[in-house]
Every structure is written in structure tokens, then in C-alpha cells.
């Protein structure tokens, strides 16, 4: 499948950025080290072999047992028509990552959604506030340990 | 041929000066009640017709449950409006909120006074009827503006400001078109304007000039009536309900009534100025045909012509989309106004040189 070839190509080209020892044992797409993350995204957008000019999607997965969040970035290239999923592993007790608003403008809204539902904070975000829930809502619903009075227990 | 001459009708008006206060009051009251009855019945009929016409354009049936084929639908709507609760916003300007629907309806009432239904049926025949009409119909603009302002609602305010700019601009084109026709008819008296078309209607007697004046008057009057494509003040898709959002019950009914009475009055003015008013359709030479046409009472002729104009206005309303505010103002100030000014100059040239038909 084209995704695996692409993944290997990216992993081989940007070897210093790729994280080898992820806490979550899932054989999947490219996982990037948190410290080198924003420059990787800038490079991969401008790289003439890949040219990922659309940030299709940004979401997060909460691994409460391993104490990490996986931030998922789904990139698409309109010129080559290939896509890749880039992951970043973020510790659960300090979920801070830098924003990608300067690289793809839509990141502003997608990061607001992830902040609203997961509580992940973004450095240098111009307008970080809740988007779906009210401004004074307490808690982050899509985390696995979220409880409130409206939920029905099975 | 029936002799339509204004001298024959002079003896119908009582010129004696010794009427008591009681008679004067009675006279005024009877006019008032007649107008009221006429407006209510007329508006009910026209609302029903509008709904059926709209349904025909939209490939559906329209009201057909209340009464035979839905005739009593308007009566049901009227009863509903009469029994609704009157809600006034808390911070609104109470006095202005109260009187603005009354301004609209009184403007429409007052213009009804000079409408010539037939040579015998007219409430008052002032010597400057057309001028009176154009002056009094502007009161409606004030009503709309005050309604939007006093509602304490930003959307109503936007709609009122739009209405003010639109209605004031299009007044100019209307007045200029009317003036162009007055150049031809040489009188402001409404019955005399109708009688001046005994030899033929002005719309084809004045060929190009009156045709242009007719088009400009028609477009400007649709703008004055707040009908689509000029219904920005009441832009239903943008503003909810525009300047009459905060009105309910009888006050809303007043705005509604005023709109339909204005529709009737404006169509009547179009018919009087351009299409011959209550005069029947004659073909010169065919005396049998002419006598047949004469036997139909003149009020039927007027209502027939007015209903054709109303149908065309409704047709345009249900077909076209709405203009944006700057397109609207541009249309008036850059196209209609210069054209009507040039038209007026051309009209005076024509009249001075007797270049129209049937001088």
C-alpha cells in the first residue's frame, strides 16, 4: 500500500526526527519526537518529494494506561495525491505542544477542537478557547477518565 | 357613446355652504367607515389571490381547506391577528412603537380618498389629486423608519435604515415619471387625466417617452412597495422579519394592510396615468364593439386593469431574487434618475412640438 512505502520513505529521510521507543505498542505510521515536532512539520510541508499542503485532520487518542496522548495529524498532498499520518506522543500530565497555525491555517480550529475535548494545550495559539462546549465547562469529555452527571453507566 | 364630461357631474356635488356640524361629522364618519370596509374586504381578497398565485408559480395548491377552495382563509387569518397578544419590548420607545403602524395605515387611508373608481364613484376630487397622492404616500416611509427605530432591536434598525434610503431614493423616480405624464396631460386633476385619454391611452399615444416613463414608474413603484426584488427592509432570509419583527397582533395587521392598500393605490395610479383609468377599450370604427364595451360599468374596467397590474407585480415578486443594498441604490441614482430626467426633457420637447398621437 502506498501508505507504507511513503511511511518508510519519510522515516528514512527524516531519521533524526522519528521516535523509536514509543510507549504504545502499535505498528503504525510515522511517530515523531515531541522536541523536534514543529520543524518536522515545516520541513515536510515544503519538501519537494512530499509536498503535504493540506492538513486534512488533527485529532488525539487518549491512552490512559500508558499515560500518553497520541496526537494524530493526517496530511494530504494535492499535487502527488498521497497521504500520511504523523503521530506525536505527548505525556498525559503535561500535554503541551506547539501550534501549527503558521504552517496550515486550519490548524487553529482543529487544535481548538482537540483542546476542547482532550485538554491539550498549544503554545503560541492565537485564540485558544473552547469550541463546542460552553466556556465555563469543567473537564474534558473525550478523556477516558471523564465523568459527569449526565453520563449513563452501562 | 356615453358622454363623459365633467360638467355633467358637477351637480352631484352639493355646493351649499349651510351644513351643520352634525352633517359634517356624519359625512367624515361615513367616509371613514366606507374606507374601512373597503380596505378590509379588498385586502382579504387580495391576500387570498396572492397566496393562490404564489402557489401556482410554485407548483402547489395553496389554501384549500378553510371554506370552499380556501376562500375563508383570509377571514381565519384576520381573526387570528385580532386575537393575538400585543407584545411590546421592554426598553422600546413606547410612544413611537405605538404610533408607527398607525402612520403607515393612515398614509394608505388618505391616499384612498382620491381614487376614481368611476366617474361617479370618488370620495373627493381635489384639483391637484396627483400631487396630493405623492405627498401623502410619503408618510408611510416615516412609519417604517419609526417602527425599526423604536423596536430596540439591532436587526430592525438595520432594516429601517435600509428602508429609509431605498424609499427616499425611489420617490424621486416616481415623482419625475409622474411629472413627465403631467406634461402630457396638462392637468393635476385625476378625473381630467382619465378624461384626457378618451382618444387613446397615454402609453401608446406618447410612444417612446411614455413607454420609458411607464417602465421607470413600474420599477420604482415595486421598490416603493417593498416587494421582491426590492424587499430589503423586510428581507426574510436575512433579517427574519425586518422592521416589523417586534410587532404582533393588530399592529402587525396594520403594516400588512398598509402594504396591500399601497399595492392597490400604486397600481391604480399606474392605470390612471398610463392605461386609461376607468375608460373602456374602444376600437375606432367598430361601433358595435364600442357600444358593447361601453355597457360594462367603468368600475369593472378599472378593477380589471388594476388586477392585471397587480398580477404582474406578483409574478415578478415570486420569480426574481433580491437585490443587494448597494445595487439597489446604484440602480436608482445612476440609471433611473438620469433616464427620467432626460425623459422629462424629451417629453417637454414632444409636447411643445405636438409630436405625439392624437393631439
Amino acid at each position, binding site marked *: 500500500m502506498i501508505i507504507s512505502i511513503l511511511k518508510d520513505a519519510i522515516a528514512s529521510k527524516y531519521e533524526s526526527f522519528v521516535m523509536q521507543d514509543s510507549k504504545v505498542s502499535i505498528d503504525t505510521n510515522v511517530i515523531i519526537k515531541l522536541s523536534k515536532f514543529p520543524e518536522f512539520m515545516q520541513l515536510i510541508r515544503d519538501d519537494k518529494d512530499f509536498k503535504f499542503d493540506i492538513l486534512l485532520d488533527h485529532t488525539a*487518542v487518549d491512552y490512559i494506561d500508558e499515560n500518553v496522548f497520541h496526537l494524530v495529524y493526517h496530511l494530504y498532498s*494535492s499535487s502527488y495525491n498521497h497521504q500520511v499520518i504523523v503521530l506525536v506522543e505527548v505525556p498525559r500530565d503535561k500535554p503541551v505542544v506547539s501550534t501549527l497555525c503558521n504552517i496550515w491555517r486550519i490548524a487553529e480550529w*482543529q487544535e481548538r477542537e482537540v483542546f476542547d475535548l482532550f485538554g491539550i494545550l498549544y503554545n503560541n495559539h492565537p485564540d485558544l478557547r473552547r469550541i463546542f462546549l460552553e466556556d465555563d465547562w469543567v473537564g474534558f469529555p473525550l478523556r477516558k477518565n471523564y465523568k459527569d452527571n449526565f453520563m449513563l453507566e452501562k | 357613446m356615453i358622454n363623459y364630461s365633467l360638467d355633467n357631474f358637477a351637480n352631484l356635488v352639493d355646493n351649499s355652504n349651510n351644513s351643520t356640524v352634525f352633517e359634517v361629522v356624519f359625512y367624515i364618519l361615513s367616509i371613514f367607515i366606507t374606507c374601512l370596509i373597503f380596505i378590509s374586504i379588498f385586502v382579504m381578497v387580495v391576500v387570498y389571490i396572492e397566496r393562490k398565485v404564489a402557489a401556482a408559480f410554485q407548483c402547489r395548491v395553496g389554501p384549500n381547506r378553510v371554506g370552499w377552495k380556501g376562500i375563508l382563509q383570509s377571514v381565519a387569518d384576520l381573526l387570528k391577528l385580532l386575537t393575538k397578544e400585543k407584545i411590546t419590548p421592554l426598553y422600546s420607545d413606547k410612544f413611537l412603537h405605538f404610533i408607527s403602524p398607525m402612520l403607515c395605515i393612515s398614509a394608505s387611508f388618505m391616499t384612498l380618498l382620491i381614487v376614481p373608481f368611476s366617474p361617479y364613484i370618488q370620495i373627493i376630487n381635489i384639483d391637484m389629486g396627483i400631487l396630493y397622492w405623492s405627498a401623502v404616500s410619503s408618510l408611510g416611509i416615516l412609519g417604517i423608519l419609526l417602527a425599526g427605530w423604536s423596536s430596540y432591536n439591532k436587526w430592525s434598525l438595520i432594516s429601517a435604515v435600509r428602508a429609509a434610503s431605498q424609499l427616499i431614493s425611489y420617490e424621486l423616480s416616481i415623482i419625475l415619471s409622474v411629472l413627465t405624464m403631467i406634461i402630457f396631460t396638462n392637468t393635476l386633476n385625476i378625473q381630467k387625466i382619465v378624461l384626457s385619454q378618451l382618444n387613446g391611452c397615454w402609453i401608446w399615444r406618447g410612444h417612446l417617452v411614455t413607454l420609458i416613463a411607464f417602465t421607470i414608474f413600474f420599477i420604482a413603484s415595486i421598490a416603493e412597495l417593498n416587494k421582491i426584488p426590492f424587499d430589503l427592509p423586510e428581507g426574510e432570509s436575512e433579517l427574519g422579519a425586518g422592521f416589523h419583527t417586534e410587532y404582533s397582533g393588530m399592529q402587525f395587521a396594520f403594516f400588512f394592510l398598509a402594504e396591500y392598500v399601497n399595492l392597490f393605490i400604486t397600481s391604480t395610479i399606474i392605470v390612471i396615468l398610463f392605461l386609461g383609468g376607468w375608460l373602456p377599450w374602444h376600437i375606432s370604427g367598430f361601433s358595435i364593439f364600442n357600444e358593447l364595451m361601453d355597457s360594462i360599468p367603468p368600475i369593472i374596467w378599472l378593477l380589471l386593469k388594476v388586477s392585471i397590474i397587480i398580477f404582474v407585480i406578483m409574478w415578478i415578486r415570486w420569480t426574481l431574487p433580491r437585490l443587494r443594498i448597494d445595487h439597489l441604490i446604484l440602480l436608482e441614482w445612476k440609471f433611473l434618475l438620469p433616464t427620467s430626467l432626460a425623459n422629462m426633457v424629451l417629453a417637454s420637447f414632444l409636447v411643445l412640438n405636438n409630436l405625439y398621437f392624437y393631439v
Partner: protein
Amino acid sequence: MTIHLKTLNEILHNLDEKKHWGTKEYFINMGPQHPSTHGVLRFVLKLEGEIIKEIIPILGYIHRGIEKIGESVSYRNFVHLTDRCDYFSSIINNWAVSRTIEQALNMETNDRIETIRTIFAEIQRIQSHTMWWGVFGMDLGAFTPFFYGFRDREFLTSIVEETCGSRLTMNYIQPGGVLYDIKSNFIKRIKQYIQYLRPRIEEYEKLISDNVIVQKRTENIGILPSEKALSFGSTGPVLRASGIPLDLRKNDSYGVYDKVKFSVVIGTKGDSWDRYWIRIEEMRQSLNIIEQLVDNIPAGKHMVTKYTTKIKLPVGYHHSSIETARGILGIFVASDGMENPYRIHMRSPNYNNLWSITDMAVGLKISDLVTIVSTLDLIIPDVDR
């Protein structure tokens, strides 16, 4: 490290205090109930007279937590939930989830299933676009096209109801096939409908597209240049109007799209007029696709697995995307091998299309905002999920 969390009130008051407002600037609320925001979408507009200075869209009025619910239902039940997002073309949403599951399990479906799925997806696209056209006319002030658009959609709804059983939330395309086989007079009715709709589209073009009022109100309004469109994450007709030929039906073929001939419609400027006529043209292309397919539906089963088998995806991440009538709908699943997904996420096209309005509509008037929102073709439950 600069993270500053704000609330909406703060933003409004902040702008208040800066005091470099002109004398004619004011805030107005185009509230959740409004005739032309296509659902419960709220805009806070900062206006100067009629010119818009700033738009702040406020979402969440119909946020139902579909992704959270998805973590406690099975995969087959999640297909029901996707119906409720973009309800004008719900069968296409079902296909997105089914495609993800089939790719993850390496499930092969037969040609009959794929052909039926393609036909129904194109039917839903036509339904969505006729409805959009009607609503577009209504937003612009012409109330008649609304009835025509609804009537054309209604014919298709009754055809679809015969097969799927319901009129709005069909729940038809399942992982492994389609829920019911097509009924006997489906093909005949579809052919009648194609004959019916083709001349109507020409008539509708004469009514709205050739109307100078519509042209003046949509030309050069809401221009979205192609670099900005890419950066704003727009997809679907919005992106194609800006000149980027991205259509997943061609680029990432699924169903039987690679076996039919159709063209991808691309605009030039990215204004509202381009977004408008592209959708009219897409309707014609969809009719072509259906016409090529409807006579040659191969024989076979309509479901390759049993409906009651439990679905468990392998551990890991799975995703796939579909081109809906409004853009790219993506489904992203993080699975831990259980019956319910560990995390399931819908990349909704309308959510990403909506944000470009904060840039497009600045400097235009309120009437233009209505036009732009109408040509973006938003469905708010899909924005809020």
C-alpha cells in the same frame, strides 16, 4: 511559553476596551435561530454600517458527542450515528465507515455491491445538490426555487425509500455490503427520473443562473484563492472552485468510479459564482454516472458477510475517506481489538469548510455573508457532530 486561554466574553470586552472603534461600529448577533444559517450556527458580527469587520462563529449548539458515543457502541451501530451528521446525503456517510472497516479487515466485496453503492452515492449527491440549489435561491430572496428543489429531491426520496425503507437516515451501506437488495422497479424509476431531471436543470439554469441579479450578487464575492483554500483545509466543491482538482472519486478510487467516465469540474477564481455553477455541473455529471451504471448492475449477493457477525478490527490505527457532496469525510479509528472502537473520529468536511468564512467575508456586506454561507453549503450537525 505563551498559552492564553480565553472566553468569548473576554474577546468581546477586549475589543470594547481598545477604544479604536469608529463611531458606526457595533456588534450584532446572527443567532442560532436564523432563516439563513442552515441550522443552528451562531455568528457574532462586528459591523460598521453594513460592512462586516469581523466574524466570530460560535459552534456547539447541536454538539451531541457522537465520537464519545462511538466508544461505547459497536462498529455496526456506529454506522447509524453517521447518518445523523450530514443528513442530506446520509448514505455516503455510511460508506465512509464501511470502507474503513473493510480496508482494515481486508474484506473483499463483489461488483454488485460496489455498483449499487456507487449508484446510491450519486443519487444522494443529486439529492443534496438539488436541495442546496433550492435553499440557495431562498437565501437570495427567490422563494420559488425552494419548492422546485424540494420537489426534485422528493422524487428521489421515494425511490430510495422503496429500497432502503426510510427517507432521511438510511443506514444502508454496511460493512460487508448493503442492507437490502434493490427492488424490482428501481432501475425503471431511476431511468424515468434521469429523463425528468435533465431538462429541468436547463430550466433552472435559465431561472437562476442567467439572472443578472444572481450574477451580480455572486460574482467576485467571497473569493478564496487556491493557496488559501489549501491552507484552510477546504475540500469538495469549495476547493475545486478555487482551481485545485482534488476529487477522491478520481484520485483514490473506490466503488466503481474508475470504470465510469465523468469529469471533475474545476472553477477558476474561487468566488461564489464558481462554487454555484460547479454544483450544477456536478449534478449533470452524477446523472451521467448513474446512466452508465444503472443498466449494467452485475448479479451477485448483496451482502458478503452475515449481518450479525461481530466486527473486531485489528489493533492499530485505521482510516479512510470518501468524497461526499460537500467535501472529504474521513473516518479515523484507533482500535484495541475489542468490539467497540477505542477511539473513532470523523473528519467532517463542513467543519473545515466553515472556518474560511472568517477570512472571506471581511469587508463585505451582510447580504454577501448570506450568499457565502449559502454557497459553502454547510450542514451544521456535521460541523458540530
